[in-house]
């Protein structure tokens, strides 16, 4: 049975977005990054489904909601391999992947305790200097950090 059909079985979606291949331990981080906790949409969240690639995965289905590329790019630091299926009239009309953006604003916390961003009420900003390896550079203190050490705000 394909992943798509498995996803659809949770609850059929007429229009909206299926976010698939979420690592199980990142499921609720994805919810937070997309601000789904404040959403009025009809949302189905499933977790710990079997996955050949991930072992266990989570799936989120959001009715009548289509995410912008900016919103999707927020997921790049925690779940870069997430797949999005855009559903219209029960059919997958488009598949989207997460793209690492040029910069990340207000998403990542700087690991440097002496950075101004950790001591002043302000928005963090990181430049992505190596998309492949997920290396970020703080716009303010200029310290680099790798994907492994990244903490979200």
């Amino acid at each position, binding site marked *: 049975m394909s992943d798509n059909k498995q996803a659809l079985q949770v609850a059929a979606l007429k229009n909206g977005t299926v976010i698939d291949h979420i690592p199980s331990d990142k499921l609720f981080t994805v919810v937070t990054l997309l601000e789904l906790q404040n959403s009025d949409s009809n949302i189905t969240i499933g977790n710990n489904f079997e996955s050949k690639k991930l072992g266990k995965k989570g799936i989120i289905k959001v009715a009548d909601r289509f995410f912008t590329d900016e919103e999707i790019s927020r997921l790049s630091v925690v779940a870069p391999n997430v797949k999005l299926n855009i559903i219209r009239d029960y059919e997958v009309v488009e598949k989207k992947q997460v793209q690492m953006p040029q910069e990340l604003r207000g998403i990542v916390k700087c690991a*440097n305790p002496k*950075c*101004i961003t950790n001591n002043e009420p302000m928005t963090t900003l990181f430049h992505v200097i190596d998309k492949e390896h997920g290396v970020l550079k703080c716009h*303010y203190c*200029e310290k*680099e950090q790798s994907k492994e050490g990244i903490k979200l705000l």
Partner: protein
Amino acid sequence: MENRSLVTIAEHSKERILYLLEMAKEFEKKPNRKILDGKVVATLFFEPSTRTRLSFETAANRLGARVIGFTDPKVTSSSKGETLKDTIMMVSNYADIIVMRHFLEGAARYASEVAPVPVVNAGDGANQHPSQTMLDLYSIYKTQGTLENLNIYLVGDLKYGRTVHSLLMAMRHFNPTFHFIAPEELKMPEEYKIYCKEHHIKYKEYTDFNEETIADADILYMTRVQRERFTDLMEYERVKDVYILRNKMLEHTRPNLRILHPLPRVNEIAYDVDENPKAYYFQQAQNGLYARQAILCDVLGITLDDVIEDAKK
């Protein structure tokens, strides 16, 4: 209006660096002027640094500007919980330029983004200290007649030494050969060696510091080896006297060699070196005045032509 703040010179082009050095040269010819008459320069030192503050304030005073500011964070509202932004916005109402020293990294970048007036970074934590780099470049340029193709020896604490990192990056335009002389615990960090490779900067590394290693030096840049930087105090005891420059080591060095040090020194340059004509660290500090005069004018949009024209008055 374009914000002309000086946060770092790491991204400055070769032309821009040479342009600022030309301007510093003009101020050295005539340091006392009225070109900043009527301007107010605020020096905000959230962390004390007497040398840097005196240098900036002298630069401003000799150009006819007035100076306001504070040094001790305890007397300002930052200890009452005021944000940096609020302090900057308040001071921007009074001053035409803000010169800021802060203990937090990135503070100058942030201040330059929120301030309606230009901000000059006078040091932000371990991050950047562009006016120090400008005066180092000016000292090298002045003593060697060029910045091109020089043998530059960096000695001492190359791990935490912010000034040597900034100098290394600023020199990338000028085809230098760097020689890194440091104890194992304080050697040049990997990221700067990668930077060298990426920018085709030649370098060699040594742990020995003696007459032979420095024989081909054009510039010997000394830094402090501080006890508190060592995790292993045995190592400190072993190396503390190794990275000291003594006058007799200079006997067979090149005639054009000049010795630089960001000051204050502790014991890494023996006092007998002071009398040697190759010692340049006190003049180097004086060059800071001209470099900072150039920086203050540049952030206000005063050009090299304006400065040359002004000298005729």
